[in-house]
C-alpha cells in the first residue's frame, strides 16, 4: 500500500494525475502536461512535492566519523551551512544509495536519501554506525518542496529577507520563517536550473505549498510532477538511483569519481573499489541523430559489437531532442563517435556526447 505525502490533497486540488512512485502516491503531471512543466522550470519556475524523499539525522561526537565511514565522500572539512553529495557503498563497492548531507552543527548532520531506498539505507546505516552516534529517521515528519527555475530567487524575495536566501550552490540557511512557517532552505535541486528546496514540518507542508504557489503566480510558477522531474534531471545529465547506478554498479563506473575519496583512511567499499582498479565501464551521454526515442535498458552497439546498455532516455523538451545515458565498456567509444541503439528491434543512430546536455 503506497503512502501519501503531506501534500497529497494539494495535488488532487491542482488536478494532478496520481501514480505510485517509490512507495508513494505522487502526481506524474498536472493538467498542464510534462512539456509545459519542464519549460516552466527552464524559463520561469516550477514547484515540486519531494516529500517522498527520506530524511535521516546523525548526531553525537561520533557522527562525523560514522559519516566518513558510511560515505565515499569526505565530510571532514564540510562547513556548517554547507551541503555535500555522496554515494553510499556496500562492501563490494556497489551503490546502496546516493544522497546529500547537510552539516547543521559540528556533530549534527541532516541526510536526504531516495524514497525507494529509505528503509534499506536506514538498515545499512544503523548496522554500520560507529560509537557515539545517534541516528534518527524523521522522514514521516518532514515535508520537502522544491522551487526550481530562474525566477525562484525573485519569488523567495517576496517572502523572506534577501540575506536569508542561501547565496551559494549547495549551501543552506535554517530557522527561516516563510509566512510564519519554520523552514530549512537550501540552494539545491535536481533540475539543472537555479533552484531551492524547503523543508518544514509535515503538517505545515500544505500551507507552505499554497503560499509559494500563490506568491509565484505572477512569475509563472506552476506545480510540476514526477514526469518533468525526470526529464529535467536527464536533460541536466544527473544520475538517478536504480538507473545510472544500483547495488551492482560502482560510483567510479557511473562517473561519480569526484565524490569518491580514495585517499580517506577507510570507508565501506573502499577495499573493493581499490581492488577492482580502473573501471571496466563508464557512463556516456547519447544524442539521438536518427528518428525515435531511446529509453532505458536498450542495447548500445558500436559497429557489430554490443558495448553496453542504456540506463535512462527520453525526449528532452528544452533541447527539443531525444537524449539518453548509457553504461558501456570503458574503451569502446569516445566523444563524437556514432553508435546505434536497439529500440525494440530497430537500430536508432546516436552520437556520444558530453553531459550535462543542458547547463544554465
Amino acid at each position, binding site marked *: 500500500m503506497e503512502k501519501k505525502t503531506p501534500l497529497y490533497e494539494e495535488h488532487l486540488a491542482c488536478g494532478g494525475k496520481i501514480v505510485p512512485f517509490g512507495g508513494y502516491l505522487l502526481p*506524474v*503531471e498536472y493538467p498542464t502536461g*510534462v*512539456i509545459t512543466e519542464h519549460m516552466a522550470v527552464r524559463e520561469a519556475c516550477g514547484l515540486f512535492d519531494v516529500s517522498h524523499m527520506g530524511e535521516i539525522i546523525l548526531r553525537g561526537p561520533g557522527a562525523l566519523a560514522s559519516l566518513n565511514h558510511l560515505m565515499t565522500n569526505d565530510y571532514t572539512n564540510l562547513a556548517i551551512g554547507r551541503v555535500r553529495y555522496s554515494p553510499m557503498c556496500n562492501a563490494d563497492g556497489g551503490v546502496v544509495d546516493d544522497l546529500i548531507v547537510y552539516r547543521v552543527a559540528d556533530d549534527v548532520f541532516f541526510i536526504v536519501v531516495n524514497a525507494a531506498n529509505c528503509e534499506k539505507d536506514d538498515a545499512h546505516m544503523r548496522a554500520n554506525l560507529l560509537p557515539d552516534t545517534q541516528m534518527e529517521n524523521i522522514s514521516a515528519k518532514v515535508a520537502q518542496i522544491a522551487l526550481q527555475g530562474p525566477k525562484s530567487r525573485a519569488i523567495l524575495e517576496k517572502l523572506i529577507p534577501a540575506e536569508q536566501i542561501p547565496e551559494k550552490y549547495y549551501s543552506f540557511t535554517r530557522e527561516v520563517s516563510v509566512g510564519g512557517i519554520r523552514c530549512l532552505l537550501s540552494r539545491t535541486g535536481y533540475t539543472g536550473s537555479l533552484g531551492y528546496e524547503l523543508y518544514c514540518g509535515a503538517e505545515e507542508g500544505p500551507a507552505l505549498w499554497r503560499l509559494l504557489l500563490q506568491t509565484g503566480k505572477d512569475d509563472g510558477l506552476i506545480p510540476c510532477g514526477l*514526469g518533468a522531474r525526470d526529464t529535467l534531471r536527464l536533460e541536466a545529465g544527473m544520475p538517478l538511483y536504480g538507473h545510472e547506478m544500483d547495488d551492482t554498479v560502482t560510483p567510479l563506473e557511473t562517473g561519480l569519481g569526484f565524490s569518491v575519496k580514495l585517499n580517506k583512511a577507510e570507508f565501506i567499499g573502499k577495499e573493493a573499489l581499490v581492488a577492482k582498479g580502473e573501471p571496466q565501464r563508464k557512463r556516456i551521454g547519447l544524442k539521438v541523430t536518427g*528518428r525515435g*526515442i531511446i*529509453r532505458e535498458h536498450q542495447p548500445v552497439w558500436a559497429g557489430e559489437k554490443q558495448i553496453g546498455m542504456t540506463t535512462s532516455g527520453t*525526449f528532452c523538451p528544452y533541447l527539443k531532442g531525444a537524449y539518453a545515458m548509457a553504461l558501456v565498456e570503458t574503451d569502446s567509444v569516445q566523444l563524437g563517435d556514432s553508435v546505434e541503439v536497439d529500440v*525494440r528491434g530497430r537500430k536508432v543512430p546516436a552520437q556520444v556526447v558530453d553531459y550535462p546536455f543542458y547547463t544554465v
Partner: protein
Amino acid sequence: MNTPENLQYAKSHEWLKMTGEGTAEIGLTDFAQDALGNLVFVNLPEVGDSIVCGESFADVESVKAVSDVFSPVTATVAEINEELLDQPEKINEAPYDAWLIRVEGITETEELLDAKGYEAVCAEEG
C-alpha cells in the same frame, strides 16, 4: 472526455471512422491521448503495408513511455498522416481530427464499441 457518437471504438483505445466501402480512418481516442500525456514521436507504417486486426501497426511515444497502437481492422494502408511525424502534439490537441492512417480493402473488423460502450470501458479503467 470527448467521445463522438459517429465513431466506433476498440477497447485498446483506437477509434475507427468508416469513410466508404471498405475504407476508414484510424486514430487514438481522447482517453488514450490524455492517459499518454504529451506525445513527442509517432512511428507510422508505410503506404501499401498490410495491417492485421488486433496487431500493432504503429507506436506513439509520450515523454514518459512508448505505446503500441493496435489495428481494429485487417486492411491495407492507403495513406499515412505525415503531418503527425513532425507534429505529434496534434494528437493531443484534436485526437479525432488527427487520424494516423487511412486504410482500404478492409476484410475483417474486430468487435467494436459505440460511444456509450466505450465510455463504460474508460470509466472502468479510471
